[in-house]
């Protein structure tokens, strides 16, 4: 298995309050052809981790530590070098497909932008590549001339997927890509992403708060709590035999399909005093 991304001792803090760490000493590795899910509640630092990898942190925040992507430390690159990697070697999909697409440009044009910027494609070559990408994500090629508002939520997210894989990235970062979608559409998008990952041998970093989604798509799972990785391991290990009390508590909150489980809210007071590493 080829290692694509390796994060070492990543810290993210507010510039004004450097002692207040939003991501604390987090380290993990991603390999080609595997999906790693980061799970956590809001404020756990899962999205910040993704933004740091892409070099898109707000200028109010500072990161320290190393992000090695194919052997290159991304934290040492300047904006210009980073722009060449972002969108080409690292693809991104965000939660809200309507806000991430430009409403006044056709979806074909928006997919084309990526290809022109990174691959220099023009004219007919560009057109046929756009058609091929749309077909690949399950949208009829003639929809290239449609505007985002003419598409359904699921189709918009498929367009986002097409954009993110346009340059055949080695790493795909998906930040809650199905949270805003209906369950049936969510199931379709998850299947699509899983197929693409296997076919293109990408490493996928999938951020979610839904354990159901985790169990469908993940190979490995990272659980974050208040900026720290509290548990990491294979899907089976983490979901069936969780070691950390926070993981156990979080799993106890997830309603099951049979409705047999007694839901137990997390007792944070207990977690804080006893079990969370300082």
């Amino acid at each position, binding site marked *: 298995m080829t290692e694509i991304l390796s994060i070492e001792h990543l810290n993210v803090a507010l510039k004004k309050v450097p002692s207040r760490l939003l991501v604390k000493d987090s380290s993990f590795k991603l390999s080609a052809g595997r999906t790693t899910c980061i799970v956590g*509640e*809001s404020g756990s630092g899962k999205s910040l981790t993704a933004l740091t990898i892409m070099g898109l942190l707000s200028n109010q925040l500072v990161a320290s530590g190393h992000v090695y992507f194919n052997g290159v430390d991304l934290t040492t690159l300047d904006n210009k070098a980073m722009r060449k990697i972002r969108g080409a070697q690292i693809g991104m999909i965000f939660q809200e497909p309507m806000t991430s697409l430009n409403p006044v440009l056709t979806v074909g044009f928006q997919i084309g932008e990526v290809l022109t910027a990174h691959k220099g494609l023009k004219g007919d070559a560009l057109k046929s590549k756009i058609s091929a990408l749309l077909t690949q994500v399950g949208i009829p090629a003639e929809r290239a001339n449609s505007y985002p508002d003419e598409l359904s*939520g699921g189709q918009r997210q498929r367009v986002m997927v097409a954009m993110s894989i346009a340059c055949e990235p080695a790493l795909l970062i998906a930040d809650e890509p199905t949270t805003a979608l*209906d*369950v*049936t*559409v*969510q*199931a379709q998008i*998850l299947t699509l992403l899983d197929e693409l990952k296997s076919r293109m041998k990408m490493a996928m970093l999938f951020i979610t*708060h*839904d*354990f*159901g*989604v*985790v*169990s*469908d798509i993940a190979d490995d799972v990272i659980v974050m709590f208040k900026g720290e990785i509290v548990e990491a391991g294979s*899907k*089976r290990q983490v*979901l*069936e035999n969780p070691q950390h009390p926070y993981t156990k*508590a*979080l*799993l*106890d*909150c*997830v*309603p*099951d*399909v*049979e*409705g047999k489980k007694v*839901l*137990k*809210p*997390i007792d944070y007071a207990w977690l804080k005093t006893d079990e969370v590493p300082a």
Partner: protein
Amino acid sequence: MQDASIILEAHHLVKQYKQRSGGLGYKQTTINALDDVSIALKKGSTLAVVGESGSGKSTLARCLLQLHPFDSGEVLFQGQSLSKLDSKSLRQARKNLQMVFQDPFASLNPRMRVGDIVAEGLLVHGLGNANERLQKVQQMLERVGLHADDVKKYPHQFSGGQRQRIGIARALVLEPEVVVCDEPVSALDVSVQAQILLLLKTLQKEMKLSYIFITHDLRVVRHIADEMVVMNKGKIVEQGDVSSIYQSPKETYTKELLKAIPGQKLVGL
């Protein structure tokens, strides 16, 4: 003819929206938001309304509470038709019909103190004097797991889950019979979702409430509801007892919905 245990029912509700569609706005398409929808809520029980976006489930909630006019059909609360009431009697009936909204960030006025937000219903219905109202509000806040001193705070001082508790306190302070919950846990983290679901269940027992629970999450339905209706494109495609629908769904659409629930492959989840 009336079943005494039915507290709220809707007969043959129809609601159409007209939408301008192309032709410089001269063409119209009609959308059937509710197409002959009938439901019945038993006293003290929870009826879940399940469907995807655009299925008409929120329109149904609003029509039940007479917040939206509907084209035809009727809504009966304790056997009395709500559409026949004048505005004054309707306002009185609304004391018994309350709503909890989806987005706890959008549904609380950021410029009002929590005490005033929760007390507003009491004020509108002219219940009690200032002191009694304050007492009632404080008791209600404690009942939903907040503190009596929270009356002085503003919504932004609370987390999402706490805000949803404020929304619940606002609905319940009037001691209603029926509460319509429109996706009350969809915007919350799973851990907070579990807290709010348990709170709603406890309050239902203590206050003998009947819930209409609108949601798209079938895992939540299983945990909170006794009966359910499945909606698709404005129509009810299937309705009945929750456990029997989960065990043997009859309609293709229901089967598809159940199949799409994430996380069924792994045992224990």
